[in-house]
């Protein structure tokens, strides 16, 4: 157990930072840490040396559920063929304020 602890690089955490209030949190990269406290501190030291974050989220990497590249077709299909979600689809008289 002791040897294992000596040679571990600690668990993987994904880091999300918010640049300023009002902005979304964005994926910044990852850190290794043995627990959530150190994950937060490491994330601050690695990803915000120049005031790049007002808020940081860290998530154990294995808790992230993600779509896969194979999904790209069928999973996202409903959004591909409903062009009428885009206002430009509709033809109306031009030059009218606030609606053209």
């Amino acid at each position: 157990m002791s040897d294992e602890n000596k040679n571990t690089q600690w668990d993987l955490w994904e880091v999300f930072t918010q640049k300023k209030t009002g902005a979304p949190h964005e994926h910044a990269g990852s850190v290794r840490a043995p627990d959530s406290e150190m994950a937060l501190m490491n994330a601050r030291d690695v990803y915000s040396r120049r005031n790049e974050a007002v808020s940081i989220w860290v998530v154990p990497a294995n808790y992230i559920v993600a779509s896969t590249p194979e999904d790209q077709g069928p999973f996202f299909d409903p959004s591909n063929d409903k062009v009428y979600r885009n206002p430009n689809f509709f033809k109306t008289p031009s030059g009218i304020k606030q609606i053209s």
Partner: protein
Amino acid sequence: MESTLTEEQKEIDFQNKIDSGIVIEPKDWMPERYRKQLTRMMSQHAHSEVVGMLPEGNWITRAPSLDRKAILLAKIQDEAGHGLYIYSAAETLGTDRQEMLDQLHSGKAKYSSIFNYPTQNWADIGSIGWLVDGAAIINQTALAKCSYGPYSRAMIRICKEENFHNKQGYQILAYLMKGTKEQQEMAQDSINRWWWPSLMMFGPSDADSPNSDELLRWKVKLHSNDFLRQRFIDRTVPQAEAIGLTLPDDKLKWNPETRHYDWGEINWDEFYAVIKGNGPCNRERLKARVDAHENGAWVREAAQAYAQKHFN
């Protein structure tokens, strides 16, 4: 979902993706060789950042002023951060960080040859920031457009921070060149020793670079070694002239036809000797890394034990 495509078809599709500028992400299919080459490149790049902390760390206790000490500390901390960005990105390809570190510590993995040279005086800190980080900027700016998402994003982050390193180094030398005769001689001596090794950072000439074609085709490399090296020379010569430094190459001359500087020849024997492990500081650098890893084991153990006790 099982893919019914043949390996050959998958490779063709992959190349088409690269050619059309699509960025490859960690879960995408990729040829094993692409994965392997990138893992090698990225882990060696990360090792370089961390080993690169050593020659500069040598002068923290002897920086000429408190300001310069604080600035040097900040620069070195940045290098640690850069190493960490790249290790994080390299791990997305499936190799555990411990394995990469084992390869470094056993001498199996390489790191940039430049860090096997000693820092003999304070002016060397200037040369490193100006020449070594300057060369790194040229290389990393190109890599920011590479085909692998995590690597390119790490490069973008690094490029933003590298400019301070470059400027800091140049300012050290500019300041010395305005000083006493002794200070000017120290600056000149420093660049006499760092100029040629900095040019070697760009790697062998293209004819002698076996991996290049494949890496260029996969947009893991965006330009040839010679192209980037020439870009570095063209940019740096006027900077040297502006502060009164003479670069140690008497063949250096502006060519109005090619609109580039003509220059002399690299001593490739020295380059190969250094990457084979026989540079001035190879053994010292490796020992420092191994010692740091082993002497830090108690920290890793303690943190892990604490976490198991309190967070499970």
